[in-house]
């Protein structure tokens, strides 16, 4: 049952991927400017320019360019970076691990801390703790990442000198970026967990669980948590996409290499193949996250499993 469901979901990714590739291609090519300007030496003639445009195939129709790109993609060829003059796949391969480590750690941090906070605030019936957690949630949901990054750098890196200001040296250089990205995630996950747990507690069947003589802890961990996890897992799955995409500005502020930094640089230079490649990776991450979320949802809830197959 679950296998069939997974297969169906995978099939549905095909039309989605095609639409996404079109959107990415159009957005990138409809931007004003082109990469050739970055290649021209001062004093070049219009003829020089045309020669370069022809060399990179930019004089052909968008239609032809799109299908050339897609055709090459199917052969595993992401194309050649125009300004950076290297295969796009190499650039991505070089930067992706940094983003994965940073995003993965931030994801783990926000999942674990967020869920713990959510559980604590809904289980511990202490108004002070609850208010503290709720205040934190409000703060975390509203403070923008780049601003928080600057604050953290100022306090922990410049004043206290505990961590490096920027770069991707040792493990200590990861602490501030992970905190920055994780902060918003912690707040979001905590909020969803808290509300989901309180909703689960109000379900009718909880009364009967108590009537069976089960202890509060058994009811909480065996019955309420699985219910509360359903919305939490959905939120977490959506954030899997964020592992790569959410770090774009933060990578930039901390001067870390990564997919985000690469993308921002390539965007500035209108380096079409690189921008397309990066955006495609981000879109893939989001699709993968959604897919994982849906499958997890079906694995956890028999009702979903049946309704969707």
């Amino acid at each position, binding site marked *: 049952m679950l296998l069939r469901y997974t297969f169906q979901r995978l099939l549905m990714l095909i039309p989605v991927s095609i639409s996404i590739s079109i959107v990415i291609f159009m957005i990138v090519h409809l931007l004003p400017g082109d990469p050739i300007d970055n290649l021209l030496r001062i004093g070049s003639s219009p003829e020089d320019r045309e020669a370069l445009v022809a060399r990179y195939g930019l004089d052909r129709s968008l239609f032809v360019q799109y299908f050339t790109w897609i055709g090459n993609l199917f052969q595993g060829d992401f194309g050649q970076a125009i300004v950076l003059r290297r295969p796009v796949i190499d650039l991505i391969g070089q930067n992706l691990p940094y983003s994965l480590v940073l995003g993965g750690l931030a994801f783990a941090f926000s999942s674990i801390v967020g869920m713990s906070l959510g559980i604590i605030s809904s289980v511990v019936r202490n108004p002070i703790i609850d208010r503290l957690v709720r205040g934190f949630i409000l703060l975390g949901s509203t403070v923008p990442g780049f601003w928080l990054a600057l604050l953290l750098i100022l306090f922990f890196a410049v004043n206290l000198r505990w961590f490096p200001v920027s770069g991707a040296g040792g493990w200590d250089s990861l602490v501030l970026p992970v905190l920055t990205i994780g902060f918003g995630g912690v707040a979001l996950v905590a909020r969803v967990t808290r509300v989901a747990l309180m909703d689960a507690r109000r379900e*009718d069947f909880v009364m*009967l669980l108590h009537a*069976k*003589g089960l202890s509060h802890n058994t009811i909480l961990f065996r*019955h309420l948590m699985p*219910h509360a996890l359903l919305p939490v897992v959905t939120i977490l799955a959506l954030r899997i996409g964020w592992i790569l995409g959410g770090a774009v500005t933060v990578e930039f502020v901390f001067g870390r290499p990564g997919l985000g930094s690469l993308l921002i640089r390539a965007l500035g230079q209108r380096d079409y193949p690189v921008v397309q490649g990066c955006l495609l990776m981000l879109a893939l991450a989001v699709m993968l996250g959604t897919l994982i979320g849906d499958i997890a949802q079906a694995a956890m809830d028999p009702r979903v499993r049946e309704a969707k197959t």
Partner: protein
Amino acid sequence: MSMLSVRDLGVAFGSIHPLSGVSFSVDRGQTIGIVGESGSGKSLTAMSVMGLLPLIGGRITDGNIEFDGQDLTNLPETAYRKLRGGRIGLITQNPMTSLDPLKKIGPQVDAVAILHLEMTPKEARARTEDILETLRIPEPALICDRYPHQMSGGMKQRIVIAMALAADPDVLIADEPTTALDVTVQAQIIRLLDDLVKERDLALVLITHDMSVVAQTCDKVVVMYAGRALEFGTVETIFDAPQHPYTQALIGCIPRGGDGTAKLDGIPGTVPTVMNYPKGCPFHPRCTRAQEICTTTQPEFTSYGDSAAACHFAGVAP
């Protein structure tokens, strides 16, 4: 000595007192019916006996609940937990929502025997299948592997009953066990409960708003209204000679067959909410016999052989 006896029970939520002066008792092999319209405090009575009031923010303020000679009103939670599901079973109103939708049927029933009879999961499953069999559920082993949403309401209610029976309790509290079910299934469930009382020598507290169910199955009745008991006694006396006007009205509401011209009776007005219980006799705003005294003074119980009614005019010919 009664298996379960409730004396002068009063319940409060903060400063609101939705329940007061409720008394009844039930022996092994006996069924007591608690009847009344919705909002009369029947379910609250069940919650009090189960010790589940704190869960919804309530507490017992008056009277006591005695189970097998043991006072439950001040019983610590850990000791209460052994009784709940172990010696007192609960059947709730809506079988559609009373099972955990994410868990299979088997484990949900097994949990009771594992907890209270200290069985291994394997023993518990064998017991579960036995119980399902006695509840006339076809192919118990298959059912155990199903999820709640894959079964009908009547089937789910049997599962809930199986859960209540799993630890071989002495008392069963059934809170409107048939209200949410199809009429065809209602009779089956009621008969099933009736059989269980006889076969297992259970004491059954049957909460219902259906006087005809009471007439069929109960030995004793308590009629409740607006959080109070208005009349109690044996089924025979209550049905032969109801003293309280409310009881009379409830009995009048039982549809009788016949030539098809008979009109269905109702009781005019509505049950007061907790926030505005009337002064004096709680039923007086809807009572056809209400006088001046009914609006000011709460009537005491007067006995009439096997029953007692709290009405100023009980025993007085209308």
